């Protein structure tokens, strides 16, 4: 550190002004989030009504609870199908878009679903995915389905795939923007050098672009995972509190426990899910710290 920097650092350090800037926000965060969450942790070891100490009983109960098992299984299944699909498709489209000279309009089209409220979308989904809906009508015109064997996508195992479609539709634009940010942060001289050396588009991508996108991939994976919890909106609007069992997610379970005031189970489940997500977020932070460029 130079002498000048040292002095300035001292100046900044001596100032306690940050207290005034930070306190209003921090106060709210502590009152509305931190303190009650500690209370939730405490409650996860107590019975719901009498508040007696039960140790790990609540945790045992939720792990043996069939609804919890189903919800965890579905949530994991949902993420393991959606994430690769969304991330792969997003990368493919981002690379295609990055090669266009004018991509703004097309990018807007992909981003637009972000602006569509779930409530509006659901009306459309009902018309598309109902047994008598547009999707079956379309398949019928292609002679792939008939009136008799038409699938009701909402009330069968296919509901899961409707949800996957919904999630990808809504988040693809977001993912494309993230990928594009990564792609454009790659210094152009490396790419130019590769082109001068005679690399074709495919070689450029696999040998130059892709290896430089690892940091971005990491970020996108974690962000998409956390975003996937918002798919509850569509799921709930389409199918209510108790949807087809293929799309009964953790979010439904939390909601139903809340409605039934089963607060002890909720506390234990919130601690479990919170811990898993907390670890995922710390990994993301490490990536941000380690990797300055992406």
């Amino acid at each position, binding site marked *: 550190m130079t002498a000048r920097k040292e002095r300035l650092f001292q100046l900044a350090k001596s100032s306690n002004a940050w207290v005034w800037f930070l306190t209003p926000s921090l106060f709210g*965060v502590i009152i509305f989030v931190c303190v*009650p969450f500690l209370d939730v942790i405490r409650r996860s070891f107590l019975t719901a009504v009498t508040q007696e100490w039960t140790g790990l009983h609540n945790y045992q109960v939720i792990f043996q609870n069939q609804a919890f098992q189903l919800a965890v299984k579905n949530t994991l299944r949902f993420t393991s199908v959606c994430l690769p699909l969304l991330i792969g498709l997003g990368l493919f489209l981002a690379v295609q878009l990055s090669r266009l000279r004018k991509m703004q309009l097309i990018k807007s089209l992909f981003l637009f679903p972000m602006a569509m409220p779930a*409530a509006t979308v659901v*009306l459309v989904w009902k018309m598309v995915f109902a047994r008598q809906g547009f999707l079956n009508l379309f398949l019928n015109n292609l002679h792939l389905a008939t009136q008799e064997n038409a699938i009701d996508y909402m009330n069968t195992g296919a509901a899961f795939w409707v949800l996957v479609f919904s999630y990808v539709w809504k988040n693809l634009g977001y993912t494309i923007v993230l990928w594009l940010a990564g792609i454009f942060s790659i210094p152009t001289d490396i790419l130019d050098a590769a082109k001068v050396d005679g690399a074709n588009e495919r070689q450029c991508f696999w040998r130059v672009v892709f290896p430089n996108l690892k940091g971005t991939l990491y970020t*996108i994976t974690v*962000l998409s995972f956390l975003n996937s919890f918002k798919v509850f909106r569509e799921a709930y609007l389409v199918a209510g509190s108790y949807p087809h069992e293929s799309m009964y997610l953790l979010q439904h379970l939390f*909601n139903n426990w809340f409605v039934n005031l089963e607060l002890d189970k909720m*506390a234990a489940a*919130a601690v479990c899910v919170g811990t898993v*997500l907390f670890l995922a977020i710390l990994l993301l932070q490490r990536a941000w710290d380690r990797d300055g460029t992406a």
Partner: protein
Amino acid sequence: MRKIWLFLLGAFFITPVFLVLSGTVLSRYELQECLLPLITGADQFIGWKFFPQYPTFEHYLRVLFYTPQFFVVFWNSMKIVVLVLAGQLFLAVPAAWAFAVYRFRFRKVLFTLYVVLMLMPFQVTMLSNYLVLEELHLMNTHGAIIFPAVFSTFPVFLIYRGFCALPDSLIDAARVDGAGEWMIFWKIGLPLASNGILSAVVLNFLEYWNLMEQPLAFLEDQSLWPLSLYLPEIHLDQAGYSFVASVITLIPPVFVFLIGQEYLERGIAASALKE
């Protein structure tokens, strides 16, 4: 060639808008004819007309002039979104400034806490939210939605990213010249925060206009509901009404999207890039 298929795929992504828009001008009879199988459950496919035979504005008239209930719900949504955004900025801009400019003890820990909270889904904090709201007697009021949202840490993060671009030497020069901390924030910080603020406003407008989980859990009284909960309650036999309500719900976010797309993209990219 590439441009064409990308465009077609993109156009496919926004077809729901056209479906809803065309639905608003179909007459009652045409709608019934098209959607009858859905209502009666008959074994027939539904039909659609993107261009109605007799376009009509009867549904618009009905929503705008004969359904006062719709306005109550619309203003509920507006009130929640506007108060949340205003409150967030009021708290987040100074907080972001504190994180970006000052080096203090526990800064790293506190910032990590903010990032963790910004990324936690509602389900994890639902019970803790409920416990506070119950304690403060805010359940079943708009305060139950607004207060927890105002203390969201996401805007702090976005605006912080904008402040980080500011060179330390600028602030130090101001300090050496004798400017007070408040003055520095007011004269140098605020003008530079505008990008982050706009990103936060655009992203959070889309988010809070679409809010479902919180009102569903914390608002029992239907007259307090926002549009996002009210719309799905409209039964399909009132399809025209439903389409118009959907279009009106769509207007504010689309407006924000169109004028704020640049900031929307910046806001998204801010979470992936370290400047």
